């Protein structure tokens, strides 16, 4: 057994305080639960008359007079992010590709491209195409393998302030475990995002995300193999996400990220066959935001661990939506392709928004849209089920 593990903290991240709410007492539990968060909304309501004077006093004038807002968030097991804006796996490479135009060190965290045990060449081209308000991709987990990734990037990552979360994919539980063991205790690796939901590979991937038992089994196996913070990425391609999410949480995941891409396809311009080399691809972008929002909303009511929302974030409104639906952080994905500096701007905008509402932390924004009685709707079985 390994003797001692380091605790990952970054920069001047404040400890996960409970905000200005005076709400629940500070606890030593490793994660802020949804319950904790929801009780924080007895805070003064935004836009209420009493709040007018502060808003009038502190309008963001031309100078950068940004109020000090606590944007830090604890995703569990010591993975404390300085802010809740992450970049999604597969859209930011290994963090070095956009370095010319983006100040990567300001990001909450970077989720790197899906990494497997052995090198993968990926799917046949073409691999991407634009669709209404979104895009399809079928990269097929092209990556140089975990050893090459560590060899090329780990030293660089260790020198960054921004935590790098390695997205791990595999074809079997043994694959996942072996990759994770290689990542364990490597400086520069802040956490693991377990990709059990890639829709673009024939074998492995999705089969774990659509089955409750398999999802729990792979989570448990990885949990035993590492002390690194473990985030499990959910698939939207399931009938009911809640039992799967609950099983993963019970199996020892520190946090969940939701969602991966939706399975879809596009045809060639002359309609002689599928456009993508892999026939099927994963849909991302603003088109999937309502689906992702529904899943975050549902999962937030059945698990007590933090949720990182992914899906069509293109502006502050999307961030606030996901927070209100119960997520504690968001990942920006497809929007980076059009606007590489968006994640950095979102951090500033979120701080400004909190300042405007007179909040010392963004955490009171979390879970405001969740029902007062958890699971009330599902108990009646009246919600929409596709």
């Amino acid at each position, binding site marked *: 057994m390994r003797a001692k593990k380091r605790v990952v903290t970054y920069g001047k991240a404040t400890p996960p305080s409970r905000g200005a709410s005076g709400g629940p007492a500070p606890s030593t539990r490793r994660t802020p639960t949804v319950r904790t968060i929801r009780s924080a909304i007895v805070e003064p309501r935004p836009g209420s008359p009493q709040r007018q004077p502060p808003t009038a006093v502190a309008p963001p004038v031309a100078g950068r007079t940004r109020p000090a807002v606590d944007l830090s968030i604890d995703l569990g097991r010591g993975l404390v992010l300085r802010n809740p804006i992450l970049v999604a796996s*597969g*859209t*930011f*490479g*290994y963090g070095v*590709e*956009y370095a*010319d*135009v983006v100040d990567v060190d300001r990001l909450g965290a970077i989720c790197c*491209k899906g990494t497997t045990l052995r090198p993968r*060449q*990926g799917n*046949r*081209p*073409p*691999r*991407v*195409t*634009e669709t*209404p*308000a*979104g*895009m399809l*991709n079928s*990269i097929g987990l*092209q990556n140089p393998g975990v050893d090459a990734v560590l060899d090329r990037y780990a030293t660089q990552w260790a020198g960054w302030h921004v935590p790098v979360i390695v997205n791990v994919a595999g074809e079997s539980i043994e694959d996942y475990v072996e990759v994770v063991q290689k990542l364990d205790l490597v400086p520069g690796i802040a956490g693991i995002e377990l990709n059990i939901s890639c829709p673009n590979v024939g074998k492995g991937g999705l089969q774990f995300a659509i089955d409750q038992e398999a999802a729990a089994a792979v989570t448990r196996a990885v949990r035993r193999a590492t002390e690194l913070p473990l985030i499990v990425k959910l698939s939207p391609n399931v009938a009911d996400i809640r039992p799967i999410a609950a099983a993963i949480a019970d199996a020892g995941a520190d946090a969940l990220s939701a969602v991966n891409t939706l399975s879809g396809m*596009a045809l*060639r*311009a002359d309609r002689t066959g599928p*456009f993508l*080399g892999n026939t099927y691809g994963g849909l991302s*972008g*603003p*088109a999937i935001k309502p689906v992702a929002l529904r899943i975050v909303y549902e999962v937030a009511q059945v698990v007590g661990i933090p949720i990182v929302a992914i899906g069509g974030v293109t502006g502050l409104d999307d961030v606030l939506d996901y927070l209100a639906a119960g997520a504690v952080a968001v990942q920006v994905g*497809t*929007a*980076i*392709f*059009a*606007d*590489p*500096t968006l994640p950095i701007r979102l951090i500033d905008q979120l701080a400004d928004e909190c300042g405007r509402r007179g909040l010392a932390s963004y955490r009171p924004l979390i879970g405001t849209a969740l029902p007062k009685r958890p699971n009330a709707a599902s108990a009646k079985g009246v919600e929409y089920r596709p």
Partner: protein
Amino acid sequence: MQLVDAELQESRQVLPGQWLQQYHAPALAVSARAGQFVHVRTGDWSGLVLRRPFTINTADPATGAISLHFREVGRGTAWLTHLRPGDTVDMLGPLGQGFQVDPRSRHLLLVAGGLGIADLRLLVDEALRDGRQVVLLYGCRDASEVYPSSLLPDEVEYVVATDDGSVGHHGFVTDLVLDYEAWADQAFACGPLPMLRTLAGLVTGRKGRLGVATLGRKRGGGRPVPPGSSAARKKAFLQVAMEQTMGCAVGACLGCVIWGVNGPQRVCREGPVFAFDEIDWEATAGVGTQAR
């Protein structure tokens, strides 16, 4: 690579459905090399989530102007054609590896198919500036699509082939290559995939007798270079500019790959210019881009 706001200076339709736009972007004009491209952000309206890659048609460091030559094929390009002078466009660039001309090359053979001329236009300027001789072979469907010679410098020998014979040679542009291959030190091509594949077929197996490789042999042969390396690409008789639907254009998303002999190659990062022998032409057979 930089993010710049480029101001549209001039926009005109040079051929049916084909536009030539000049932008003021000094940062790009100074650093752009022939064959490189910019990734252009289209308007946020109607849910276009991806940027559009355009090759840099011309770049003038003196005036800070770059130009783009494109065909209106979908909503993104349609949006560009509606811009007015003075409007600004968000551009990321210059991106990718451009054409690499061997310093010993005196005679350059450029082969363009249709809009492929946009990739080679800046190479014409660079080659003439460096005192090289240029022959430009241009192929298109019929007389209405022939690239206007007024847009080319006078020093270029410009030869046209049309599929229907309405102007110039009656047939494919690749038919003309045989007349010039002995003259050429290096050849550069951009155009439809079948054209590039035919050219690669013409050159394959004979590269030892063509172009700068021959020059090297007269000097007792150069040092062997690893295939696929930058040095090998520079020496290659034929370099081709490839096309693929693109996501990020900086090498992060791995979306724009084509199949090379050494596995997948990112068009945005390892390309868009490749030596002809780097590409697995069999595996690339079905690749096409979708109108959007």
